[in-house]
């Protein structure tokens, strides 16, 4: 961007050039000209300040929007991606044919001689295509089940309004997956004949879009052929059968989340039964513990689905114990911090996913999980994944930065300052991981939910939390002891004092769950501040804070953190 002659016309650069100057997006000779002018012009500096305030207010407004938790997690997405790839990836035979058609010089002969075999290959594709579609259909139904379980595990309720249409007959129902659907009035318009057909198609009027019912019907048909088609609405599985009454059934899953959104049944010589979703929303439900016992209103299919049938007799309390066993196992090997495990439950299984540090830890986790009943590792295989709480690669500090400058003076060399900052980063990453693990435990076992637990489980959760909290207190103290002297020194030089008034307004104490929830972001804030104080100057960026502001924020956050680490009410007594 280079607007010439602005000086001649108005004497000041127009505001859009000032913004481009602040954003560092001016090109040509403009950066120098605008920069020189702004540095000498109080009016333009004031405009720049106003622009910076504007964008930081807008950013703060955006940050204040709290987003709901994801409906389906990354694992569900991953399964969906793989399923999509299975469908979209060309069959190896087709890929080979495509290669032949590329007419690369070395392949001309192959193309010419292969023409005759193309027909045979096409026939093979057709021949093999049918079982492939069937496998894909089964996979889709399994995904639908997993998505439903995933919602339940997050204590979410899927509320659907569905419409059943058969000729001129229209029936509407409200269905709540994850909560017992209230008994609905018997519809007098459903005569015995229709009821028989619904029963044959495994359609429960109280939940007519249940994927498990469709799977059960499909599995019950000995001879069936599947086709899977992707439409604008979603993915439709159509199953043709050779029955006397029903000739075809189809189920459509939404393109995201694998939610069943439509189902149809084609009947020999009669109008089809069509069921479709009218509207849906997802709401929070009561705690998981109370939901599991009343999760599904219709029987689970016993085949085609990836997990064992429901009603197999796994009680909520057994799952609770299994989950706690798993959490204790992770804690005993330190993996609850270092491997950042994610643990969640379906109706009959405790799932987990971890980020092991090394193969040894990976095997230890697998061994421990194998010893606990009802526990299953999510996904098909363990693989090395980046731990979200791992520190980022170290970088040299900026000698011109306040922290870099102070450290070089204190430690005598730039190398020593870099080493110190590296060690600080590692400590910071470790305590953040500890706080995140404790926070996760607190969110899984909130104060109110703990009250409903049997005393022995309460004691086990408290012991686990106590151990994690002690480690967090100890390691945070070491981290702050290393950081504080240099932070205080810079603050003293700049005449910034830590105010104790802020923590004075806090209550006497908080539950460990609340303290854990606050300590984790505070530790992240401090790490971010340290990074800002040791990095290159941020001046010029609209959202940049001054060094004094960052320092004041660090000192304030440190006061709060120290308070939260030492002010836990009724320390780990049974709630």
């Amino acid at each position: 961007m280079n607007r010439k002659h602005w000086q001649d016309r108005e004497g000041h650069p127009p505001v859009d050039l000032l913004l481009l100057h602040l954003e560092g997006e001016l090109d040509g000779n403009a950066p120098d000209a605008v920069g020189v002018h702004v540095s000498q012009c109080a009016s333009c500096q004031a405009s720049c300040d106003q622009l910076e305030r504007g964008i930081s207010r807008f950013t703060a407004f955006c940050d204040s929007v709290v987003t709901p938790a994801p409906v389906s997690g990354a694992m569900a997405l991953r399964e969906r991606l793989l399923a999509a790839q299975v469908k979209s990836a060309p069959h190896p035979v087709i890929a080979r044919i495509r290669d032949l058609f590329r007419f690369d010089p070395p392949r001309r002969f192959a193309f010419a001689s292969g023409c005759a075999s193309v027909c045979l290959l096409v026939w093979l594709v057709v021949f093999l295509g049918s079982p492939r579609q069937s496998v894909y259909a089964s996979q889709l139904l399994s995904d639908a089940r997993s998505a439903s379980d995933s919602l339940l595990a997050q204590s979410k309720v899927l509320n659907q309004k569905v419409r059943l249409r058969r000729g001129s007959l229209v029936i509407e129902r409200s269905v709540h997956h994850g909560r017992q659907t209230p008994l609905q009035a018997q519809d007098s318009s459903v005569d015995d004949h229709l009821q028989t057909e619904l029963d044959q198609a495994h359609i429960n009027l109280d939940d007519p879009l249940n994927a498990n019912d469709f799977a059960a019907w499909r599995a019950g048909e000995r001879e069936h052929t599947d086709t899977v088609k992707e439409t604008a609405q979603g993915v439709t599985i159509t199953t043709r059968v050779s029955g006397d009454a029903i000739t075809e059934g189809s189920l459509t899953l939404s393109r995201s989340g694998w939610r069943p959104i439509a189902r149809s049944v084609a009947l020999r010589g009669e109008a089809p039964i069509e069921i479709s979703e009218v509207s849906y929303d997802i709401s929070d439900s009561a705690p998981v513990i109370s939901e599991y016992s009343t999760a599904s209103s219709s029987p689970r299919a016993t085949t085609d689905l990836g997990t064992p049938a429901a009603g197999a007799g796994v009680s909520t309390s057994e799952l609770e114990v299994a989950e706690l066993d798993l959490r204790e196992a992770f804690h005993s090997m330190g993996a609850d911090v270092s491997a950042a495990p994610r643990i969640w439950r379906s109706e009959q299984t405790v799932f987990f996913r971890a980020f092991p540090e090394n193969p040894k830890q990976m095997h230890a986790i697998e061994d421990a999980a194998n010893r606990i009943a009802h526990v299953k590792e999510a996904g098909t295989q363990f693989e090395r994944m980046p731990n979200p709480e791992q520190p980022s690669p170290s970088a040299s500090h900026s000698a011109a930065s306040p922290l870099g400058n102070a450290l070089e003076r204190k430690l005598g060399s730039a190398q020593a300052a870099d080493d110190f900052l590296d060690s600080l980063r590692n400590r910071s990453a470790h305590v953040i991981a500890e706080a995140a693990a404790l926070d996760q435990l607190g969110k899984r076992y909130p104060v109110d939910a703990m009250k409903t637990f049997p005393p022995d489980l309460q004691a086990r959760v408290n012991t686990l939390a106590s151990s994690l909290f002690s480690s967090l207190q100890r390691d945070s103290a070491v981290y702050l002891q290393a950081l504080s002297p240099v932070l205080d020194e810079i603050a003293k030089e700049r005449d910034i004092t830590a105010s104790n008034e802020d923590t004075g307004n806090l209550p006497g104490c908080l539950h460990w769950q609340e303290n854990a929830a606050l300590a984790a972001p505070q530790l992240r804030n401090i790490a971010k501040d340290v990074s800002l104080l040791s990095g290159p100057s941020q001046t010029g960026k609209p959202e940049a804070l001054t060094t004094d502001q960052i320092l004041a924020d660090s000192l304030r956050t440190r006061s709060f953190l120290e308070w939260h680490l030492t002010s836990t009410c009724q320390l780990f007594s049974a709630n």
Partner: protein
Amino acid sequence: MARAPQGWNNHPGVVLSLTGSDQPMMDEHLAAYVSGLYEEHHGSLLRHLILSGSSAPEAEDLIQEGFLRLFRHLGSGQKVDNPRSWLLRVLHNLRIDEFRKHKREFALDRPEFECMVAQMRTKGPDAEAQVIAQEQQARVQKAIGKLAPRQYQYLLLRAEGLKLREIAEMFRVTVQTVSESCAKAMLELGRLGDES
């Protein structure tokens, strides 16, 4: 930051191997990579779409569709330098399609949006600070509500870290147009404190 598999998307050989015998392994790696990006960016993309006028379920659908497109895009051997910018562009187009389909326009003062806007963050349960922050937030929200839809979209994308040049390319306008529009809006918001 989700790390791409070693050499992923930079090496033509990797792309070619997608059609070979290594396909399941590469699919698995690519899916893991895209899932990692999903974990990393889901929250901010969801917030962006909600702020852009989508409801939470709509936004979830769009995000899933966006990541599926990214997966297919990368799977077909094409390169994406900055997945986040790429996703923002795709989501922007998907959202416009969605709005056109339902003949809907974005309004900042719709009730469900009000519910989603949380209280301004404050450190510590200081009631007075919270009241002040809420008042300030209400002023900011009112001022944002008066912005032209285009201005608002530019600012949203700018707040997501896109450069003005990238925003201009996305909307097929000149950088000067975006810069002027953003600057006016920023000045309006920046002046809020002076008026009170």
